[in-house]
């Protein structure tokens, strides 16, 4: 055979199988495009100059890996679909006298064609859309103009290498499959494995067990740290459960229905039950894939959107005032001196101090024993997170200054404030020291800046710093012997963020240059500066969520499309036989329609159930990221689910047309 023939045949094959090939090409092109864009963004020189570039860089890099892994799995999956549909044609070539090496050669040429199309268009569209994505990222990050638009040679290079490797592996796999198979099997290709599945009781039971455990973990989780610890275990359990229940559970259930003769031998049930057994067997894995992808899209979009919308809320939680100066470990005189210096700097700059607060405190992680009403030192927070409190001790004067209260405390008296529940009302112990609760405080008048609110908080106001040092001393070596207190100054100035930033750097320079303070450690912040870190983190996550969401949605669409096509070919024959044995066209159509609807909406419904069970867990994890606005998350989740459902339905009805075209 002339070489020219091979090229012609290969081109003909692609044209002939356009219905299968074009979606495959489009998917590959989009995957390559997104991979390139991700690299382009992650290694953009503008990123290094940006504030918060670290978190954005890390997030985008993570995106590259996710897309990479996804590309390998997904391209192999779609390719196997393509190959399965085409086995008949290949078998025919084989029988008509082509040797397997000839077929392999045609296959290779076909793959080279599609490789070239994919690579060239993928990188072309990548470069084309990278600018758009860059603008979107800048907008989301609210970053300046530090980013530069260029063609990323590095991106092209990595993309080329990575996808060339994937293409070669796919080609090798195809050739291997052709070599292993016999022509007669190839001829049957499209409809092998029509055996009805055995009831897989064990797998179904395992599915119920894993899914149940995963759900149970998700709804019984009681705090953020364990949510984080158990989240991945729960996710893996639910994924396993989903696969088991889709593949085996559905069939077991249908077989139970079939065993019920009264139910089964009714016109409607008869065809639908047996039809569903058949369909679930053919499609279970694909449907479980759709379900898991949909769940991922929903979780990712709802949480990143929520974080992004709620980031100002987070910022306010995290930083109670616009400007803050923390001195770690100082004595009373030093603190006074620091606050005077700061006040003077602000006044000299001509700004007015608003909502000023100042206090000294000592903080311990203590375990609270409810039965014995005793706080004991403990640092192992993972052990018993529910009993752990972040206990802040303040001299009562901080409270009096902030609120103007006239409360008087004796040595044993304390006031208690806790935003979390605490079962304490009268007497309690801190290790061996006795205390008496003089009152519970509704509002302490100031907020401590906390890095994450996963532990319960309690503020304990005692008579004076002497009491705090007594408490400290009895803990002994547990928290070190250094019992100086921390000192916090917080205030707002009503000026724009530039001026805030400038003021903060003046304060920073001054405090660090004064000789008297050289033994002190300061933490100085302004929300004006911190904001960018937040935008970088949450914006980066949001961008990644959108980006990957789009990728996964595309995958879902493609799987649905391929499923519709293969269902169509399978149903064609059945549709015909049913009519011959006396079912009307309308009846057949109705029956098939209801089955196909069930098959395609099962994954969506399962995904929504997953989301509902995961909700509590995700809420708790968002708390770790300082997002405490649960109702915002509810709204984001519901909105995402609704939009996704609409989109899913639209995709379904569009692809269903292809299905009906094949069947009729």
């Amino acid at each position: 055979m002339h070489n020219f023939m091979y090229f012609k045949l290969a081109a003909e094959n692609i044209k002939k199988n356009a219905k299968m090939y074009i979606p495959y090409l489009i998917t590959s092109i989009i995957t390559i495009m997104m991979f390139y864009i991700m690299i382009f963004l992650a290694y953009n020189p503008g990123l290094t100059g940006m504030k918060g570039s670290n978190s954005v860089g890390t997030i985008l890099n993570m995106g590259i890996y996710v897309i990479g892994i996804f590309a390998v799995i997904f391209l192999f999956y779609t390719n196997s679909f393509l190959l399965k549909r085409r086995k008949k044609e290949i078998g025919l070539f084989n029988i008509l006298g082509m040797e397997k090496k000839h077929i392999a050669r045609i296959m290779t040429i076909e793959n080279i064609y599609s490789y070239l199309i994919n690579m060239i268009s993928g990188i072309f569209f990548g470069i084309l859309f990278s600018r758009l994505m860059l603008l979107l990222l800048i907008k989301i990050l609210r970053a300046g103009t530090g980013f530069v638009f260029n063609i990323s040679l590095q991106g092209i290079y990595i993309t080329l290498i990575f996808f060339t490797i994937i293409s070669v592996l796919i080609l090798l796999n195809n050739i291997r499959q052709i070599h292993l198979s016999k022509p007669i099997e190839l001829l049957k290709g499209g409809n092998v494995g029509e055996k009805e599945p055995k009831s897989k009781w064990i797998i179904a039971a395992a599915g119920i067990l894993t899914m149940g455990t995963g759900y149970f973990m998700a709804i019984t989780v009681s705090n953020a740290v364990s949510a984080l610890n158990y989240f991945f275990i729960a996710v893996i359990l639910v994924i396993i459960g989903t696969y088991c229940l889709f593949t085996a559970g559905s069939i077991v259930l249908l077989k139970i229905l079939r065993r019920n003769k009264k139910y089964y031998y009714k016109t409607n049930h008869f065809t639908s039950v047996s039809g569903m057994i058949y369909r679930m067997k053919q499609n279970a894995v694909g449907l479980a894939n759709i379900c898991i992808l949909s769940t991922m899209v929903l979780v990712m979009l709802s949480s990143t959107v929520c974080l992004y919308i709620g980031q100002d809320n987070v910022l306010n939680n995290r930083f109670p005032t616009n400007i803050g100066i923390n001195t770690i470990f100082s004595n009373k005189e030093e603190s006074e001196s620091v606050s005077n210096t700061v006040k003077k700097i602000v006044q000299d700059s001509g700004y007015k101090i608003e909502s000023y607060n100042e206090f000294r405190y000592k903080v311990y992680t203590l375990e609270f024993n409810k039965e014995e009403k005793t706080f004991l030192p403990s640092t192992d927070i993972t052990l018993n997170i529910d009993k752990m409190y972040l206990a802040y001790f303040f001299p009562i004067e901080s409270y009096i200054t902030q609120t103007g209260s006239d409360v008087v405390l004796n040595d044993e008296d304390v006031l208690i404030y806790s935003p979390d529940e605490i079962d304490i009302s009268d007497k309690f112990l801190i290790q061996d020291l006795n205390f008496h609760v003089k009152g519970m405080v509704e509002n302490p008048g100031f907020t401590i800046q906390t890095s994450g609110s996963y532990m319960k908080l309690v503020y304990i106001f005692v008579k004076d710093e002497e009491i705090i040092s007594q408490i400290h001393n009895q803990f002994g070596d547990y928290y070190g012997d250094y019992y100086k207190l921390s000192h916090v100054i917080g205030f707002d100035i009503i000026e724009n963020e530039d001026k805030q930033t400038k003021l903060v750097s003046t304060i920073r320079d001054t405090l660090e240059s004064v000789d008297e303070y050289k033994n002190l450690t300061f933490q100085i912040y302004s929300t004006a500066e911190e904001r960018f870190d937040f935008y970088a983190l949450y914006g980066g996550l949001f961008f990644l969520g959108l980006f990957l969401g789009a990728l996964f949605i595309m995958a879902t669409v493609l799987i649905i499309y391929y499923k519709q096509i293969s269902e169509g070919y399978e149903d064609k024959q059945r549709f015909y036989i049913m009519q011959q044995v006396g079912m009307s066209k309308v009846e057949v159509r109705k029956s098939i329609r209801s089955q196909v609807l069930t098959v395609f909406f099962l994954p969506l419904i399962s995904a929504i159930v997953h989301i509902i069970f995961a909700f509590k867990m995700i809420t708790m994890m968002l708390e770790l990221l300082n997002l405490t606005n649960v109702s915002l998350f509810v709204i984001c989740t519901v909105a995402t689910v609704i939009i996704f459902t609409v989109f899913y339905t639209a995709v379904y009805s569009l692809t269903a047309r292809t299905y009906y075209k094949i069947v009729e």
Partner: protein
Amino acid sequence: MILNVKNLKKVYTSRFGGHHVQALSNVTFSVDEGEFIAIMGESGSGKTTLLNILAALDKPTSGEVFLDGKALVGISEKEISAFRRDNLGFVFQDFNLLDNFSIKDNILLPLVLAGKSIEKMNTSLKPVLIKLGIEDIIEKYPYEISGGQKQRTAIARAIITNPKLLLADEPTGALDSRTTDSLLKLFRKINEDGQTVLMVTHSIKAASHASRVLFLRDGTVFHQIYRGESTNEELYQKISDTLTILATGGGFNA
């Protein structure tokens, strides 16, 4: 008279109307109750078209078909499925069993579609299974049994409703010769039990089991042979001779 076909004509028009193909030009014949008719003819003689019209799967361009006195052509689209279910049984060359049903369920399919009760299904099922000798395989699936068994299943499915007419389209076409023999005997037996059978075939052997053979050529009934007192072998010879004349272009008149 159970089936009466009068002046049947069928013209296929290509999609854009330019091309006309006449599949049936003028077909007239009738079938009495209890007859076993074989219809023979070469490819393109109109056999399949005729069968599709008799099965109410296709409509003739002109002419009429009466089944037990009822005109097939006039039946509305709505009633046609029920009519087909109640009055006709089908057996096909490639069996057309549904892989997702067990043998038993394949046979029961028409009864389930007709909304019969489980008791009724069980009483109808038993004699049919015995008649066809497939009691042992009813829990199996179509892909687990042999071709002969598949065809027996298909026959069981066709006769379980006690149809007025059993239509068979090349029923032995996909079977080896030994299986073919036993299957044709089965058709005879069913026919002797009173079932009217109309079989389309181009196998002389299959046709030689019939009580009457019709020959189609160029869309008309060209000739017919009655079995009379002949044995299968004699009928086989007559059919063979007729086909030779047909092939060499001789002129009989029906």
